[in-house]
């Protein structure tokens, strides 16, 4: 158990462990025996190891859901929902600004400087970034583009969606917590029966059928 000390500390501190945020820790967690050991250790702390469906990210969950745990979960859920739209808009903004046709995914490298440069050249992106940065979740007080971008990246790092491998270099890597966010969105859509399509619009299947 002793070799898992640092990993346990990260998990207890509420971190999400994925191949990006902690490669060796994540590798250990893919071993079922290690997971059981950790679970046994966590039992007196009323916690257990949990993961998203794909198993791409691990975190700690309550073992017994007593009233305190439920209160804490309600508050946390409220916080998450408040930050949901800004996070989704940020994901869309990154996708559009960097001219990608896919969402930022774990392992993707993002450079604030590149992002700023793209927003600077495009008035509509610039405005959207401004609105986003001054949202209470990101909470930028500045009207300077660079400072706003910096603040947005800083907050995303604080919330574990981004990782900064070298503190002196402005280069960030997207972590597996993004997967968790996407899963949560999908979950809410399914639970609330929201009219949001996920499948292919053009339906290559139907085209094949026509052929």
């Amino acid at each position, binding site marked *: 158990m002793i070799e898992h000390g640092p990993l*346990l*500390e990260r998990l*207890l*501190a*509420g971190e999400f462990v994925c191949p990006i945020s902690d490669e060796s820790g994540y590798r250990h967690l893919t071993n079922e025996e290690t997971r059981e050991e950790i679970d046994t250790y966590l039992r007196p*702390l*009323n*916690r257990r190891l*949990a993961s*998203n469906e794909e198993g791409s990210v691990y*975190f*700690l*969950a*309550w073992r017994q*859901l007593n009233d305190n*745990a*439920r209160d*804490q*979960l*309600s508050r*946390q*859920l409220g916080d998450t*929902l408040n930050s*949901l*739209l800004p996070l*989704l*808009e940020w*994901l*869309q903004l990154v*996708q559009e600004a960097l001219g990608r*046709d*896919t*969402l930022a*995914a774990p392992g993707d490298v993002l450079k604030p400087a590149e992002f700023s440069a793209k927003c600077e050249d495009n008035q509509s992106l610039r405005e959207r970034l401004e609105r986003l940065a001054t949202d209470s979740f990101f909470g930028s007080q500045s009207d300077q583009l660079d400072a706003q971008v910096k603040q947005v990246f800083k907050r995303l790092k604080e919330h574990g969606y981004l990782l900064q491998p070298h503190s002196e270099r402005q280069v960030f890597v997207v972590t597996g917590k993004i997967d*968790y966010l*996407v*899963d*949560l*969105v*999908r*979950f*809410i*859509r399914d*639970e*609330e029966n*929201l*009219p*949001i*399509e*996920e*499948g*292919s*619009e*053009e339906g*290559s299947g139907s085209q*094949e059928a026509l052929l």
Partner: protein
Amino acid sequence: MSSNGEHALESRLLKTGSERLALLGKHADVLMQAYTRDEVPLESLSDSALRKLLAARILWRPDEQSGVKLAPKVRELIAEMLADETRRHVNADVAETLELIRALVHSYREARSRGEHWRLEQQLMRLRQEVDDLNGRFADAIDSLWQRLNSDFGFVSQLNDKIRENDRAQKQIARLLDGLALIDFDELIELVGSDGSLRKLLISLLQQQLSQHYTGLREVQRRLIELMARFRKQQARSRLISGMAAFMREHPGFVPGNYARRSEVPGLVNQAAPLSAAAAPALDRNLDSRLLAELLHQLPQPRHTTQTVEAAAPAQAQESSLAAARQQALKQDVEHFYLSVIDQPQAEPVSALEYLHESPLEWPEEIWLFQVISEYQGLPRSDQKAFRLKQQESQASQFNHLRLIHDVELQLAV
């Protein structure tokens, strides 16, 4: 004699062939322009050059009205040379090749039974070429598929195009596999009979090569399907996120259920509160205390600045935190007062003092009024407009403008 005729034919073929191949080099620029556009730019070609190119079937004219275009075979040749995956064709027309092989084998046997050695050689060579061609077509097709796969279909930028290209590649594989299935070795064995060179060419060599192609195709197919799944997943994620963002923008008041209150809390929502594994230096173990002492010695000496007595604050930490707690309680009670005003039917004014007396609260009147007023002033301007605060006051004396507040009335502004 006939052999002489054949030789003459061959030398004529050689001459015309080289002349026409040379045309490709001579007009390379024009042909490449035609490759990238729809039509051949005629202004840079002389009439005789155009005639020669048409005669060599390097160019063709679909009909009288339309312009001159690159012949499909030439376009294919260029695409193949450039490994241009957008235009590269996969064509393994096995059925026709098989027909040709059958015909060549029959003709070969006839030549052998008649003892025509020269023709025999010719037929064998053409057979070898056909088999090589067949192999080459499969090898090219597989190479083209791998190229596209390894570049993640990098020659198109949009995900939708990548998905379509992947789909196209998978269909090509299906056609190639169908083509391979057409080759029936039992039939070929019967066809070649006991002839050693034919047997080697059409059975052992071909079988070995085709089984390699088959393995290659299956591998590409597996990888293409995997890649397709990844593309589709990326596409689904992207759509989900933009869909949810659009939905939330349209429905700003949207609140999903409180999943934490369900009897069965969904796993995704169950995320335990963070816990810090704190530790402090402990002196209850001899071994550790020596280490701690060392650490203590290694600490940089703190610079003590002389503290002046005036600057030192009285040690009242406990009292001040008590006061903060009382202040917080007062603030909460006043907030409840505000809520009760909001709950008044017909928005009737409520006296702050009356509320205090009727409630079990034990705040001094003065402090209570002060907090009610300061709470009002602390509200954002927009919220302030929702209330009307009336002060019952009187002038303290005739000689100045000091006014005493006896009570305040709070009312919802309708």
